[in-house]
Each structure stands twice: as structure tokens, then as C-alpha cells.
């Protein structure tokens, strides 16, 4: 099942970029995003802002090509839009814009913003007494940003079980980060480390929530 899906999404990504070698950032997020949108997130592409949806924020906005391809595949906008990627009048830029792309919750680009916005959304859903979930995807390089650790500290402190942070660890950080899962755990998160290419492991980890703590899923990409 999965290899066929990934092949199809890869082909859509190629329609956007014109290059079968995807950039490392999009390539590393591909499997996690696919499992998230195929099996975990609740959404209606016909009503992308429905209150009943789960929220997803791509904090590392530069990994947007796989995101666009999956949103198109799932019906948020026509797949024919993908070939307009990066053109002057396209809705699909090098970083996602919430005011242009259906299904994009937050405009991101500058690193270290998205997870904090996702914390705000999780706090908002708690205030609304909603049982919907908020997911945010960050990269290991992005973990160099101080604001990421502000957000991790705050979410752990506020005990937000409705928040899941996916940390893609494709070892792009110049600084050695050590054990990322242990770092999240030290800030009060429930943590799991998975093989970022293994769809069952990813599904299992993303499906699980803790009763009191936010969840961090570290997806290792070799």
C-alpha cells in the first residue's frame, strides 16, 4: 500500500519541482506527512477551516513541497496547481501562506515560529473545550532556534495533551543535538522515537496521546 502512495506523492512533488531528486527537507517529511494526512488527521478538504478539524502547522516551512503534494492529493486544491510552484502568480511559494493555500493553517518560513503558534492553537482549543488535536512538524536544524525551546518549555508546563510535535531528525543541524527525545522528556513531554520511513511506527506514535502531557514524536531519518 504505502510504496504506491509514496510513489504517487513523489510524482506529484516532481510535477511541482520538475526534479525527481527532492530537496532533503521535503524528502525527509514525506512519509510522516503522508501517514498524518492519510490515517491520523481529521479534516474535510471541502471545508478546510471547519471547527471539527485537527490542526497541522508545518513549522519548518521550507519543507513545503511534500506538504503541497499531499494537500493536493487529498483534495484541498487541484493537483494541476502543483506545476505553478514558485511562479509569480502561484498560490504555492517556497514557504506556505495560509491566506493563499487551502489547508495551510499558518504561514511559516522563518524558523522557530510554527511550534509556538501551535501551542497558542492548543491553548485556544482547550479554552473552547474542543477535543481536536494540534500537530506541528519541526526539523532538527530548527531546534537551534531558542524560540523552539521556549515553546517546548511552555507546552510541557501547561500540560497540553492535545498537542503533538513531530521532530524530523535528518541530522541537518550543524550542532550535535544529542538525544532529542530525552530533551523533550526533560521539559515534561511524553516522547517516542520512530523510524521516519516506517509507516506503522509513525502511525502508532501519532495515534497515541498522553492523558496530561504533550507528545513528541522524534522521526529519525537515516
Amino acid at each position, binding site marked *: 500500500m504505502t510504496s504506491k502512495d509514496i510513489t504517487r506523492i513523489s510524482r506529484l512533488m516532481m510535477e511541482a519541482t520538475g526534479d525527481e531528486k527532492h530537496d532533503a527537507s521535503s524528502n525527509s517529511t514525506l512519509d510522516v506527512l503522508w501517514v498524518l494526512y492519510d490515517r491520523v488527521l481529521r479534516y474535510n478538504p471541502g471545508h478546510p477551516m471547519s471547527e471539527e478539524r485537527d490542526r497541522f502547522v508545518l513549522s519548518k516551512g521550507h519543507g513545503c513541497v511534500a506538504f503541497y503534494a499531499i494537500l493536493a492529493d487529498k483534495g484541498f486544491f487541484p493537483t494541476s496547481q502543483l506545476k505553478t510552484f514558485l511562479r509569480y502568480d502561484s498560490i504555492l511559494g517556497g514557504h506556505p501562506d*495560509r*491566506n493563499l493555500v487551502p489547508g495551510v*493553517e*499558518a*504561514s511559516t*518560513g*522563518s524558523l*522557530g*515560529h510554527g511550534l*509556538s*503558534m*501551535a*501551542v*497558542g*492553537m*492548543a*491553548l*485556544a*482549543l482547550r*479554552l*473552547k473545550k474542543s477535543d481536536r488535536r494540534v500537530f506541528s512538524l519541526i526539523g532538527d536544524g530548527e531546534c537551534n532556534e*531558542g*524560540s523552539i525551546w*521556549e*515553546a517546548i*518549555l*511552555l507546552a510541557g*508546563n501547561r500540560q497540553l495533551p492535545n498537542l503533538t510535535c513531530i521532530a524530523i531528525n535528518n541530522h541537518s543541524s550543524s550542532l550535535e543535538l544529542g538525544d532529542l527525545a530525552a530533551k523533550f522528556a526533560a521539559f515534561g513531554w511524553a516522547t517516542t522515537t520512530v523510524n521516519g520511513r516506517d509507516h506503522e511506527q509513525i502511525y502508532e506514535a501519532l495515534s497515541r496521546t498522553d492523558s496530561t502531557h504533550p507528545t513528541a514524536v522524534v522521526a529519525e531519518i537515516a
Partner: protein
Amino acid sequence: MNMRQQMVKTLEELMTHDERLVVVLAEISYSYFNTHSTQFSERILNVGIMEQTMVSVAAGLAMEGFIPAVHSITPFLVERPFEQLKDDFCYQQLGGNFISTGASYDYSVEGMTHHGPGDVQILRSLPGMQVVVPGTPGEFDALFREAYANGAPTYYRLSLKSNPVEHGVRFGKLEVVKRGMQATIIAVGPMLSAVLPAVEDMDVTVLYCTTVAPFDGETLRNISQSSNIVLVEPYYEGVLVVDICAAMCHTPIRIEAIGVPHKVLSRYGEPEQHDEEIGLTPRGIRRRIERFLSK
């Protein structure tokens, strides 16, 4: 009651009947709020000392339909999380309210890291950012109630200084305080209390400005009887010059921009000593206007 205390009163009153309003703090002023109120205490979010995340969290709340009121001391609300204000609010076109305390050198004894004379200048560079400079606590209350839910990011510049007389101000409108022929003086926020005694016996128009952005160029164009324009601002001098030029483009004008000089303020002491040093007193402003008109 000073403007900061008024802010707390206004927000608490509004929160009791507007469930969309959420206060986001980074410790500063947290103890001022009634955190035991069953009506709104869960909507007072103190994130700790993390101002970048304070602003991003507020953006997340705004995306979910809440109206955030974000507050801290000026440099920690404006300059430290500047990119979050730009990307997370202005670029995303989200509504939110950013309320500072400690204008320019109000916290004079704390030194330059706690001064904020550059706030309005840099916020004017953000597309869509509204800037409000009330002159009294009551004016803050009126302006905030008028604008807080208008869907745009809005900065409220609160000062420990206050004008002795309150005016019936409206958001986005200049108020005509005095009419005359020799010059048009635009006094921004708390500068009105220094401008009025400075020009008491002069034949000038005085326009009182409490909304810096969007600037009410229409009233300036309609009211001004003189080509001599004097701008008196409580932050780095000259921020409104571009707006004045745009409003008066139909006629040649001369502008004198009075405000805080663009230099590092490394003195301590009392705010009034800073006023004296840089000439933001009735006597200093009078001298500048007379020199300008005699040229």
C-alpha cells in the same frame, strides 16, 4: 490611576462580556490582574519570560477566533519579538492588540535597555500595523474599546506621563484643539501637555493626534491654514513626516520635527531630566517653534 492601571481595568471589564478577549503576558503586570475571577481568569495567560513565544502564542489564539491583548514593557513587546509581530500577525493578516508600558524613557532609572523611543518608528514599517498613542488613561480606554476588535494588529503606546485634560478622542481622527494662522502644530499623545502652554499666546492651530497609524491626513489637509507644520512626537523625532508630506502634497510646506533625538539615551535620573536635556518641555518646544517660524 495611570495608563497601566487603566489597561488592567479596561481589559477586565471587557473580558467579562467578550469571551473572545484573551490577555497574554510574559510575567510583566501579571500580578496586576485579578487572576481569581471565575469569569475570565482562564483567559489570562502568563507564558513566563519568553516574549517571542508570547507573540506567536497570541497569533495561534487569534487563528482560533480569539482577540489577544499582549502586554509587556516596550522593548520586550516591540523589539525582541519584532519578527513575530511581522510574520505571525502582519503577514498572516491577524487581528491582535499589543499594549506597552514605559514609553521612551519613562523607566529612566533602568537605563537604555528598558527605554523605548524607537517603538513607533519600527512598527510603522510593518504593513497593516495600527499605532495608537493615548494621552490619558481615559483616552486609552475609549480608543481601545473602539479599535480592539477591528481585526487589525494594533499597538497601544502607554506612558507613565499623562495630559492633565482628557479629550473626546476617536480612533483614526485628529482632534482640533486650537485654531490659528501662523503654523499648524501636531501634538502626539502626551506631548499635548507640553505643546499647549508653549503656544498659548500664539496664533497657531493645534491638532491632537492619538492615532499615528492610520494617520488622519484628511483633517490635516482640511484644517491647516499654514504652510508651516510643526510635529511634536514623544518618540524618535520625525516618524509622521512622510504622512504629513502625503497629506499636504497639494501645497509647498515646511516641517519642523520635534521629538526624541536619534541617539543612545544612556542617562538615568528622572524622566523630566531627560525632557529638559532634549528640549521636550514647554520652554524647549516654544524655542524650537519660534526659531522655525523666524527662518
